[in-house]
């Protein structure tokens, strides 16, 4: 799990061009959205959706689950671990 979290952090950082955020500072439990967290927004979500599809073969079956899955890097990792096809 920890390895997957680290991989996801690197992939998200690269895909979203988060140059100012180091991997050490990138807290896997911090909320991805909103002022108190990483501060991503809806456009960034789309990038992560495509990233998950390309790297792990994951397609979101129910759009309503999206918010819960994309809460933090850890929740994404849990979803990836349970549903990955690659």
């Amino acid at each position, binding site marked *: 799990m920890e390895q997957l979290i680290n991989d996801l952090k690197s992939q998200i950082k690269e895909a979203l061009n988060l140059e100012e955020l180091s991997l050490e500072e990138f807290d896997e439990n911090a909320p991805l959205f*909103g*002022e108190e967290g990483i*501060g991503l*927004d*809806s*456009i960034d*979500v*789309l*990038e992560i*959706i*495509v990233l998950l599809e390309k790297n792990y073969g994951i*397609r*979101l079956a129910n*759009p*309503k689950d*999206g*918010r819960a899955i*994309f809460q933090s890097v850890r929740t994404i990792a849990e979803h990836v671990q349970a549903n990955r096809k690659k």
Partner: protein
Amino acid sequence: MAEQVWAGTTYGNEWMHKWLIRMLRYIDVRILYLFVAVFIIPVCLVLNPSRGIAYRYFRRRIGYGMLKSAWKTYVNHCLFGQVVVDKFAMYAGKKFKIEIEGYDIFIELTKHQEGFVQLSAHIGNYEIAGYTLVCRDKRMNALVFAGEKASVMRNRDKMFADTNINMIAIQPDMSHLFEIDQALQDGEIVSMPADRINGSQKCIEHDFLGAKAKFPLGPFSVATIRALNVVTVNVLKTSATSYKIYVTPLPYDKTATRQEQIKQLSKAYVAELEKRVKQYPEQWYNYFEFWQEG
């Protein structure tokens, strides 16, 4: 960054909408146009800040003189009233004469297996396109404001019931993004406006009608993320009973970097929008400070 939710909605309450539709079943739209122009618009112009915004648009961006700008501000508000009446006339079952430029482009794209993106703007009356540019084999998904009046949504649902159109409402839980992505993966059409910044505040700046203006990054990001074909569709009112639809392909280099693709695509969109606005300057309905004029 905080996301903004658009607070706009169609004017009037459900009761008013219901009566308007009933009335339009029996009377000519021109009678209502006259009523709106004489009794509603003058009051709106006195009470609404849109007066100043529209005047400055005609004066600075279109380059009209003071008197002409004032007159065109009135005409612009009357035309806006007319397109609202036309929407309800459609709900009442009235038909408009529609001419389409570039219909072959739309048909060609619907033949491809992959989906495509259709970008619109707040000029003319885009909703008319939803009743005309439809394809039996490829579902159209239109992004709409979730806070729209229930009566408007019900009427839209009724009107679109026999067409291959699905409404995706913008939701605070971002579920609309997953629906958009799913639709594009399934080879469907996704239609969205690209001239207003809602939700994500990420934007791209372009020269538009002689000054810098900000356009939302989202629609261009959605299109380029899967290197999809993109068209822009603008629907302009040409008379009391007719509209003209312009379908224009927006080219961009799909092998370039994502940032470059977004830049090229948004530039092509803005160029086409500028062309149509110059052609129909009175049908610009973005009543907020669009330009950064210092």
